């Protein structure tokens, strides 16, 4: 494919103003912190295990974060205590993130640092538990159940804002499995529009019965550790994760990795199935290249959405091949983390940033025989090589697509 013909009008003048990733923090099935995440990736050590979540009797594998049961949210924020906010708290405590945000608070003022958190189910598990303890006579939910601080979708953004003692604009973004990719786009716009000088973006989604039984009803749960892009792939492994990134303007901060662009689109096709040819996905990737001012050949690695459902991987492969041909190495990291749903975007954004910073890209874990119908370049083994630009895809129910590009600050 001739890339220059395909994107004839690209000029670097139209580029988005880049933002610096000044600090990343991660808590996911691979461990606590960015270092643990990278080590597990390098050692090909999956975070998936046979389902042992709560009372869910489902024959599937999950990516679970250990220790949440023993780490309640206490003190001034005790009202927020629920599995999802515990996971948020655990994530905020990694990688020196709180200290980095304290610095930003000092530089810009607490009211000028925005908070944008993606989640699909927030603290719904608290409501699931409360429904088991309804008053037998009246049907009322049990005393102590706090809707606002757990179930409500804003709960997690409010928790992060309070925990970090910030007082600027905030939002939860909930577009299913693209939620915490979309936070990068919205944060960029908030800064461009002058509502904030820096932003904490993130994603937090925790295991719950709704998603386990819900994806079960759609027959999308694999009975084995998920196998993205494999000829025998048969569904997802659900995971849970928290991830956070502090974004600042390059004039005020330094860091090894830049956020260079976003592309968003809708399929307008079906609530829970992707467009078969990946038309919406193609549009999102075209948009991210346009905003980043990059030609397809300048992307050195694509971190796939790669959920391991038959339909998702097929549609994503088709869309990637239309733009990138078979030149760009692609892989899915869902075999390590599982599909962390509303936290997938941020988890894979952080993995993409780690790849850029360490000049390394992973192969798809658990993929034994590549689907022979696939045409893009899916890699099964890791490669050491400098990565100028990495593209990360996230797609959600409702046909909601988001592609992000990260790049090295050393140019």
């Amino acid at each position, binding site marked *: 494919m001739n890339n220059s013909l395909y994107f004839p009008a690209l000029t670097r003048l139209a580029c988005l103003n880049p933002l610096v990733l000044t600090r990343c923090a991660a808590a996911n099935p691979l461990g606590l912190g960015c270092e643990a995440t990278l080590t597990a990736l390098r050692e090909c050590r999956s975070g998936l295990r046979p389902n042992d979540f709560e009372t869910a009797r489902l024959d599937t594998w999950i990516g679970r974060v250990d220790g949440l049961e023993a780490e309640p949210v206490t003190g001034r924020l005790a009202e927020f205590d629920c599995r999802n906010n515990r996971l948020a708290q655990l994530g905020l405590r990694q990688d020196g993130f709180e200290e980095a945000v304290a610095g930003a608070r000092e530089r810009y003022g607490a009211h000028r640092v925005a908070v944008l958190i993606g989640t699909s189910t927030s603290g719904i598990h608290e409501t699931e538990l409360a429904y088991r303890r309804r008053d037998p006579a009246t049907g009322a939910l049990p005393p102590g159940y706090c809707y606002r601080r757990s179930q409500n979708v804003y709960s997690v953004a*409010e928790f992060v804002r309070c925990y970090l003692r910030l007082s600027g604009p905030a939002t939860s973004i909930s577009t299913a499995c693209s939620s915490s990719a979309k936070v990068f786009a919205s944060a960029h716009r908030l800064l*461009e529009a002058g*509502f904030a000088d820096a932003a904490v973006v993130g994603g937090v989604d925790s295991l719950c019965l709704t998603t386990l039984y819900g994806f079960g009803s759609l027959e999308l749960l694999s009975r084995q550790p998920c196998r993205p892009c494999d000829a025998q792939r048969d569904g997802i492994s659900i995971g849970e994760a928290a991830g956070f990134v502090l974004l600042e303007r390059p004039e005020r901060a330094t860091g090894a990795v830049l956020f260079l662009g976003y592309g*968003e689109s809708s399929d307008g096709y079906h609530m829970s199935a992707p467009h078969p040819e990946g038309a919406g996905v193609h549009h999102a990737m075209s948009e991210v290249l346009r905003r980043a001012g990059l030609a397809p050949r300048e992307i050195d690695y694509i971190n796939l959405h790669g959920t391991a459902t038959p339909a998702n991987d097929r549609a994503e492969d088709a869309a990637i091949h239309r733009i990138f041909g078979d030149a760009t190495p692609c892989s899915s990291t869902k075999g390590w983390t599982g599909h962390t749903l509303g936290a997938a975007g941020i988890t894979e954004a952080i993995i993409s940033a780690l790849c850029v910073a360490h000049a390394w890209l992973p192969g798809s874990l658990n993929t034994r025989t590549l689907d022979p119908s696939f045409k893009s370049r899916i890699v099964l083994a890791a490669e050491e090589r400098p990565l100028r630009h990495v593209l990360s895809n996230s797609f959600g129910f*409702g*046909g909601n697509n988001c592609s992000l590009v990260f790049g090295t600050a050393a140019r």
Partner: protein
Amino acid sequence: MTQAYLGSVGVIGPGIPDWHTARAVLRGECEYKAGPAPEPDAAVLPANERRRAAATVRWALAVAQQATSAGGCRPDDVATVFASSGSDGETLHRICEALAGAEREISPTRFHNSVHNAAAGYWTIAAGSRKPSVSVCGYDASFAVGLVEAVSQVHAEGVPVLLVAYDLPYPQPLYAVRPFEYPLAVALLLAPEPVPGTLARLRVEVAPEASACTPFPAALPAAFADTPAGRSLALLASVARGGRESVRLGYLDGCQLVVDAVTWS
């Protein structure tokens, strides 16, 4: 300050079938007449999807349709921001009830209807739209949070954006822990430049919580103020009255959203 031009408004609530009626009531030209909550049919949806769509989806789509139609804008030609505090309560209730039972059976349709962006998904399917769409939540401040996202998009992308804010009362037992009685859906079509028919120029700014919020319009039942989307009505009242006003909307803890609204004609 970030500005956008308000091209048109859609609104549905009990006794408020459309912007025409809401405007007349808010201007004091006629009295609010209580009536049962309307039952929008979401005619814009294909029959299959209409059968599956929850009530919140039908409400959100109805106002989206009103605003795009009044603004002379093709439904597939506008980016969207959907803002809701709790999306669909009936769906949430049914799922939690099923999961507390022995069988734990959730239907696939109920599951995909449970996502916060269900209304957005149905809208893009109905409109056949590839345009970006984001769904946000800010609890009671969901409308203001959506407005900040929408005007940021208008500013940064230079494109028209449709903001849809909607909240329907929860069924019991959720109603008891999240009580508000009046359903309401509101849509604002916002654009980077004025066009013939533009209603107002809005300039939006986040400010520290300094003085009281702009009072809820007296022409409407006070119960609307309990509905999160009802916080839009102080702004709509100012647009309806015309002139120039600085409207202070409740936003997040410690701050307010100040909207400078000027009639444009």
